[in-house]
């Protein structure tokens, strides 16, 4: 009798446990709300919180609100946030002078997703904020951060005698905190960052009476001439390991060729009667560059250094200034479309070309952020005047980086630094 009853109960239990499976697709994307809590409020922590807020909102993926609270009221505040529809909460705290602690919570289940202690590096407070924002960003999106990088560009100034000079500035990724790095009495162009993330170095080309020489500068404004051949020496690019460099030089011949510098030896990579510029390393053995030698009009090519094999990326039109992005394995370059230089994208895997920008005003010298989601370029807004603009590849939003009346050009994006570099 008991066995019969047990059997019946078993049958009932099995029928009760029913599973229903559904697949749902969402159509409309939205910004992720995030509440940033500052525990044990201090001026420094508040600055850090504001910088983190600014950084995350720059990406257009988050809408961040800052709240000051204590540990006792944190739970209560998070429950309130959950009711208001804010799923994420991040807390920052600094119990010791050397460490900033951050924790990420999910308000719905009141569980901690991740928590880390960031050991302060360097002396720049916003550098710490950028580093914490990078860590938060990586946890939330799975992508590499770019907040700890810097940008460099040339800005035009006029002397009292109305002589036009260009000076080199560095700034944060969003154009804020501008600092003058190279202030000379000559024209200075095409600044380029070295790939070394521990020792920030900037290379630029300086016009002299005899030639255009290549100069390197540290953050302490210490300059060193690195290539002083006749003619033009400009646009260096560095291999991922930093041990090989490639740059354009004319050696007084009137034609710019590419030269590879490795193990203290200089090797000529191209030998034609054209102009070969804007070289970028794809990997240790491949470079992409712009040349007008084969077809007469500038095109983008990939050169395999070991076999000297040239592969065209573009075959027609007027294409210049390629830049390679390792994260997305793609090349960004400029193409003349309807008499306007626009930015285009080439996917190295699928071999597809896509036009990224439209509208009036030539775009020049595009460069990519370390994470591959942001593009920085110079946009001509008037005759011989350009400003820096940032294109967010995720949201397709273009934002002005330089101030309204400045004439800026030749931008370049640095890698992310562990110790945030500033001019000393």
């Amino acid at each position: 009798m008991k066995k019969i009853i047990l059997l019946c109960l078993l049958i009932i239990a099995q029928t009760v446990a029913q599973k229903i499976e559904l697949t749902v697709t969402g159509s409309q994307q939205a910004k992720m709300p995030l509440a940033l809590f500052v525990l044990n409020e201090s001026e420094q922590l508040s600055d850090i919180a504001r910088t983190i807020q600014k950084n995350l909102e720059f990406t257009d993926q988050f809408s961040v609100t800052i709240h000051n609270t204590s540990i006792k009221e944190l739970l209560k505040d998070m429950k309130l946030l959950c009711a208001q529809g804010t799923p994420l909460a991040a807390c920052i705290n600094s119990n010791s002078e050397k460490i900033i602690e951050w924790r990420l919570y999910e308000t719905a289940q009141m569980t901690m997703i991740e928590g880390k202690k960031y050991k302060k590096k360097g002396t720049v407070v916003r550098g710490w904020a950028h580093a914490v924002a990078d860590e938060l960003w990586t946890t939330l999106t799975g992508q590499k951060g770019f907040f700890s990088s810097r940008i460099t560009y040339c800005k035009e100034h006029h002397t009292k005698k109305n002589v036009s000079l260009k000076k080199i500035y560095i700034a944060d990724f969003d154009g804020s905190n501008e600092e003058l790095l190279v202030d000379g009495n000559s024209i200075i162009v095409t600044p380029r960052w070295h790939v070394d993330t521990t020792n920030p170095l900037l290379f630029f080309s300086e016009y002299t009476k005899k030639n255009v020489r290549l100069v390197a500068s540290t953050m302490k404004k210490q300059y060193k001439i690195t290539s002083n051949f006749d003619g033009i020496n400009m646009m260096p690019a560095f291999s991922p390991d930093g041990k090989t460099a490639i740059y354009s030089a004319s050696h007084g011949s009137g034609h710019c060729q590419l030269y590879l510098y490795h193990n203290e030896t200089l090797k000529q990579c191209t030998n034609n009667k054209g102009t070969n510029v804007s070289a970028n390393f794809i990997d240790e053995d491949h470079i992409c560059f712009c040349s007008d030698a084969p077809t007469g009009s500038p095109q983008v090519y990939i050169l395999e250094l070991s076999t000297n094999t040239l592969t065209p990326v573009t075959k027609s039109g007027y294409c210049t200034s390629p830049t390679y992005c390792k994260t997305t394995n793609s090349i960004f370059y400029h193409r003349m479309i309807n008499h306007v230089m626009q930015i285009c994208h080439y996917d190295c895997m699928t071999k597809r070309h896509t036009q990224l920008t439209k509208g009036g005003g030539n775009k020049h010298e595009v460069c990519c952020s370390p994470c591959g989601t942001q593009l920085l370029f110079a946009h001509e807004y008037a005759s011989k005047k350009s400003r820096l603009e940032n294109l967010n590849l995720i949201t397709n939003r273009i934002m002005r980086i330089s101030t309204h009346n400045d004439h800026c050009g030749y931008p370049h994006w640095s890698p992310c630094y562990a110790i945030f570099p500033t001019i000393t």
Partner: protein
Amino acid sequence: MWLYQRKIAHNTILLWAKLAGISFFFHMLLLLLLFFIYSGNSGEYKIIVNKLANYSIPILLRQQNSSTPIVTQPVEQKMTQNNPKPTEKKQLSIKKQTPSPVSLNSSINTSKKEPVQKTITPPVPIASKKTEQKTITAPQSLTAKETTKEQNAIVSDNYRKVEALRRGNQLQKELVQHWKPPIGTPATCSCEISFTIDTHGKVQTIKVIRSSGVTMYDISARQALFSMHMPQWTHGKSLVITFQQ
């Protein structure tokens, strides 16, 4: 002797009482099973809907009439305005094998001693850009409005299937209103979440079966589950939902 007879009678009555009790018990058990537990949803079923799914597509129950001709006509699926990118999916795939009820009209034919031929109309794929051939059983007295309305409808002659589709649609409509995938997540992102709903309609014991790899994507899906109002038919059940873009 009389005592012995009394004892036998007592034992007989006791036996009959026991039998009556046991049968009453099983009868009550069966009734409990039928009215409170069994809801015809045993087993699993899966519905895949693409981005352009129009959740207002009517789901019609039509009884199979073997005397009516089967009409084949091309159907152009409508595109919803808010979704600019059409996708190539998808067909409704229902795993559950339920025996379809014999249609009423077939019983008329049995009097003529002919075998019952059942033809089940396949469900129409939702929101595909291509024109597709659709097999419809067209009743003779349909108005023009009804034909155009029914051309885009999902037609089935199985009431359980129809009920399941309607319930699935209801839940999907509710979910899509509350769930907004975060900006910047790759199009291939998808996560699978299982959870149970208590008798009051509250979501309990959420578990991520398969993560998308992007933390904020999983969080947005979980947040949507907590914020939505679960329909009555989900109370006391466990669900597995796949969120994809």
